């Protein structure tokens, strides 16, 4: 089959360039709408899109707030805690350490200044790295630095109720795991001259039958017993852990839950009370831990209380 003759190309016709502003003309698109072109924005469409974008944006802001609350405040507080600890260390190192008085628990009062650290706190069961400098005062500003001592409650080692508040979420979250403390766990507080070892009191479920509980025979539990059996009914409500509503300030009274009664200081136990929010991420209630002082040691070079290595 002979090849078909190619059609002769018509001579190229040169078309003069034209201004293509007619492409902007609406009529052009109306005649030939491109397939992936969206229809023109109507007001309703704009409104719906704007609303959707606003919702997405708000969601992102809430997520960011969670990140802020849980992580960023940790970073900010870590810096403040470090500064407070450094200030405390330099104070302790520069002052001439006065030798502890004959009765180690009758030491002269510490000079507490709001917002300044005055003691270090350790909870050995939370690990060696769990240590915080305790500052005086419990306002938001103070608690950003670290656990804060309720003003007007007892000082470390004093008769009465040495009470400390701490954050459970964010801001370093010192008291994040407070609910995990068990009876007889030690909480060690160090001042410039003294170590004080507090131990968590028996839980309310352990109070009856504590004497027959094998746990009470453990070395860690020496000096720990339900306070109602050793100190009488005034202490009946003082147990290792309790959950209260925020208005129950009586948990930090010298004798917890006993506000009206006045008891001479020498009849009061030496208690430590920790408070934090409960449940986590909520301020509906407060988690309270009570502990009693079982031992104290004078601070000496290179000396670390044996309780510090309990795990």
């Amino acid at each position, binding site marked *: 089959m002979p090849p078909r003759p190619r059609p002769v190309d018509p001579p190229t016709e040169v078309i003069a360039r034209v201004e293509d502003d007619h492409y902007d003309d609406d009529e052009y698109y109306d005649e030939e709408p491109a397939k992936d072109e969206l229809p023109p924005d109507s007001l309703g469409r704009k409104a719906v899109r704007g609303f959707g974008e606003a919702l997405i944006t708000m969601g992102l802001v809430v997520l960011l707030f969670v990140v802020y*609350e849980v992580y960023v405040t940790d970073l900010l507080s870590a810096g403040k805690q470090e500064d407070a600890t450094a200030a405390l260390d330099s104070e302790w190192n520069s002052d001439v350490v006065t030798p502890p008085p004959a009765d180690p628990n009758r030491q002269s009062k510490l000079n507490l200044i709001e917002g300044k650290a005055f003691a270090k706190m350790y909870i050995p069961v939370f690990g060696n790295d769990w240590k915080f400098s305790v500052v005086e005062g419990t306002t938001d500003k103070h608690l950003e630095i670290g656990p804060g001592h309720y003003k007007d409650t007892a000082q470390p080692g004093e008769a009465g109720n040495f009470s400390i508040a701490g954050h459970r979420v964010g801001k370093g979250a010192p008291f994040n795991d407070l609910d995990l403390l068990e009876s007889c766990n030690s909480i060690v507080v160090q001042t410039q001259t003294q170590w004080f070892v507090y131990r968590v009191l028996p839980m309310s479920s352990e109070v009856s039958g504590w004497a027959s509980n094998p746990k009470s025979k453990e070395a860690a539990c020496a000096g720990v017993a339900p306070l109602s059996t050793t100190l009488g009914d005034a202490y009946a409500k003082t147990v290792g852990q309790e959950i*209260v509503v925020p208005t129950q*300030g009586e948990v930090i009274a010298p004798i917890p839950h006993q506000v009206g009664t006045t008891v001479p200081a020498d009849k009061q136990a030496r208690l430590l009370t920790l408070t934090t929010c409960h449940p986590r991420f909520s301020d509906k209630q*407060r988690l309270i831990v009570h502990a009693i002082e079982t031992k104290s040691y004078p601070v000496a070079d290179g000396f670390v209380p044996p309780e510090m290595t309990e795990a």
Partner: protein
Amino acid sequence: MYGWIWAHLPGPLYLRVIEAVVLVLGIVALLMFVVFPWAEPKLPFNNVTTE
């Protein structure tokens, strides 16, 4: 909103991407260091003291 912002960023594509990132970072920083610290005490998440 986002489309409008994108349309109003000046410059070529790569510059617009940089501008958008800077804008986002600026807003995040504003939230983290100004808005959230202000709003946080007003929210009922983190009160740890008894009254």
